[in-house]
């Protein structure tokens, strides 16, 4: 008997040993984009170390540039057979990534019934770009919304109430006209409002505007777009109208230029990401406010930022570990820490129940403004061939802002181009 038991124990040990060794040696490659300023890599390295101490799985982050560059590098590496196991990429890239046939859906990663319940705990707006074919494909992580920053001194100077930011388009335009200041020679020294229309950002600005007239630009499957719609045209006409009214500069404003413009006092209101809050807080020499975007009739905004994706090239054990890492990052204390140190919105309500975050918000209420607008936020424009559709939209928006096309013409051209791009994806 003893001998038999010893034998069993020994064989069990020898069977278990490789598994233990494997688990200890497991190393996940994680591509990660740096989209805002600040010491993000240092923060992130800390999380990875904590995770390793807890589970023995080493997560090796690869800081791969901005979102676009990270996408390029991840896809190139996967096609080359040496890709990451997981990555943070734009939430809106879901359909395109699916089309490349490199994604593992959350059920494929091993999300069970309990996991499904956990997924339901995210803010719904942050899951808007995660669903396709009746499955979930990504876990929200570094998320933001589009917000407006405004110069309170300029508001006071123009005779506006600094504590009351416009809530409708009409109010915004009226305020922006008042905020625009000219010198004796007629040169504008301060613009009322600036919104980014350069490549990579025009579609985000426009996504917000479309939601402000309650218009959805695409279907959930990502195979159809609705640009050539009176409401979409109305949204573009409003954008263009800000320049015609003299409240915004003619032509295209660059995303990267908005923060310096704001800090220089060259723009009284800018539309930007919540992720920019810490930067402006550090550098602004005047009191400034943060507010949700207005809408045609009331505030409405659009979410942005990146989700965690899992890739097919990871084996079952690696996928499981990757999912565990995603859940580790979403734990309330860590999500709260992440939000405070970066300015991103914590993706789950329970993070806002933690004491640290409550205390932080009590001392810096601006940090909690964006969250209040999540109920009126929608997902980003996201289709198959996402970048091509973005390019078509961006070119036409830019042509319209340059005065080369009417809003109706620009939207009709965008729709025609998008139809051509999406033709192969239309199911008969």
């Amino acid at each position: 008997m003893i001998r038999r038991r010893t034998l069993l124990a020994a064989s069990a040990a020898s069977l278990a040993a490789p598994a233990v060794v494997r688990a200890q040696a497991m190393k996940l490659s994680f591509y990660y984009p740096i989209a805002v300023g600040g010491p993000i890599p240092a923060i992130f390295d800390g999380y990875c170390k904590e995770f390793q101490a807890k589970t023995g799985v080493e997560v090796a982050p690869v800081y791969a540039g901005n979102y676009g560059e990270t996408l390029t590098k991840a896809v190139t590496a996967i096609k080359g057979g040496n890709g990451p196991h997981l990555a943070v990429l734009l939430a809106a890239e879901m359909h395109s990534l699916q089309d490349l046939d490199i994604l593992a859906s959350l059920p494929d990663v091993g999300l069970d019934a309990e996991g499904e319940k956990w997924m339901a705990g995210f803010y719904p707006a942050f899951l808007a770009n995660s669903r396709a074919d009746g499955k979930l494909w990504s876990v929200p992580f570094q998320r933001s919304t589009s917000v407006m920053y405004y110069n309170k001194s300029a508001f006071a100077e123009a005779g506006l109430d600094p504590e009351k930011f416009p809530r409708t388009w009409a109010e915004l335009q009226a305020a922006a006209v008042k905020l625009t200041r000219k010198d004796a020679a007629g040169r504008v020294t301060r613009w009322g409002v600036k919104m980014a229309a350069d490549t990579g950002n025009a579609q985000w600005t426009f996504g917000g505007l479309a939601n402000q007239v309650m218009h959805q630009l695409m279907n959930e499957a990502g195979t159809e777009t609705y640009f050539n719609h009176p409401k979409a045209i109305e949204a573009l006409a409003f954008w263009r109208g800000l320049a015609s009214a003299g409240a915004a500069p003619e032509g295209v404003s660059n995303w990267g230029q908005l923060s310096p413009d704001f800090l220089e006092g060259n723009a009284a209101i800018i539309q930007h990401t919540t992720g920019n809050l810490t930067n402006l807080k550090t550098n602004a020499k005047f009191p400034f406010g943060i507010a949700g975007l207005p809408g045609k009739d009331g505030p409405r905004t659009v979410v942005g930022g990146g989700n965690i994706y899992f890739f097919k090239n990871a084996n079952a054990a690696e996928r499981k570990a990757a999912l565990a890492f995603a859940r580790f990052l979403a734990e309330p204390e860590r999500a709260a820490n992440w939000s405070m140190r970066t300015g991103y919105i914590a993706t789950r309500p329970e993070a806002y129940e933690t004491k640290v975050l409550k205390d932080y918000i009590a001392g810096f209420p601006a940090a909690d403004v964006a969250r209040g607008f999540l109920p009126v936020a929608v997902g980003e424009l996201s289709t198959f061939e996402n970048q091509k559709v973005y390019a078509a939209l961006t070119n036409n928006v830019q042509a319209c802002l340059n005065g080369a096309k009417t809003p109706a013409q620009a939207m009709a051209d965008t729709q025609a181009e998008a139809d051509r791009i999406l033709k192969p994806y239309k199911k008969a």
Partner: protein
Amino acid sequence: MRRETVQGWLLILPALLLLVAFTHWPAATTLLDSFYATPKGSRPPRFVGLENYLDLLDDPVFWIALRNNAIYALWTIPASVILALVMALAVNTAIPGRALARMAYFTPTMLPMIAVANIWLFFFTPDYGLFDHVIGVFGGGRHNWLGDRDTALPAMIVVAVWKEAGFFMIFYLAALQAMPPDLKECAALEGSSRWNFFRRVTLPLLMPTTLFVLVNAVINAFRLVDHVVVMTHGGPDNATNLLLYYIYQAGFRFWDTALAATLTVVLLFLLGMLAWFQFGVLGKRVHYR
């Protein structure tokens, strides 16, 4: 086979291997890829013959990029070469602070294009950037240099000329220094005017250098797009989209490998024709000593 032949082949073998591996082989596979549709996911690429090329003819962005690139080349090549020659002539004469002037002209060449683009991004900033500031002093208005369709491409051209001229100047300067001074003394004795000397002696003697510089300028007119990436991303509305940038967009933004391969073949063909023209036609008229 003769021994010398074997030796000859052995000597060029290393260079040949590298050339084949990194130039000819990729070019050949690109040509092959241009006959196939873009593979999607696990589906294998499908042979489509010349369809990609026909699609290209219908692609408005291709024609815009081609037109932009032609304008870009027609301005940057002559402007940078002439400016380089003028600068070289200037710093070849005995002027005070000559070393400083040479260094100043050469500085743009030493800076990486990405850094240059970021500096110029500030120059072009509307309202409070360098140019608008200077123009404002003289009572001028606001210019959205990079955000306006009419000024974006000229802005790209100015940056490219600024970046390139110093590099070409070095070649002209070297050629001018190598020119024997007795020619000048001779011409002075004959009573030839300075302009006549420049036109009849200096310029013809600089022709080999000019050909070399021209070849480089032509290549750069199609190759130098780093500042487009940093400053405009090809916008607004494709106003600064150049062929190579469009290839990058197609290949790494849209993952449309068929379009990227087809564009690459077109670009290769264009460059090949230009090289043939330069070496075959211009080259024959160059006088080598």
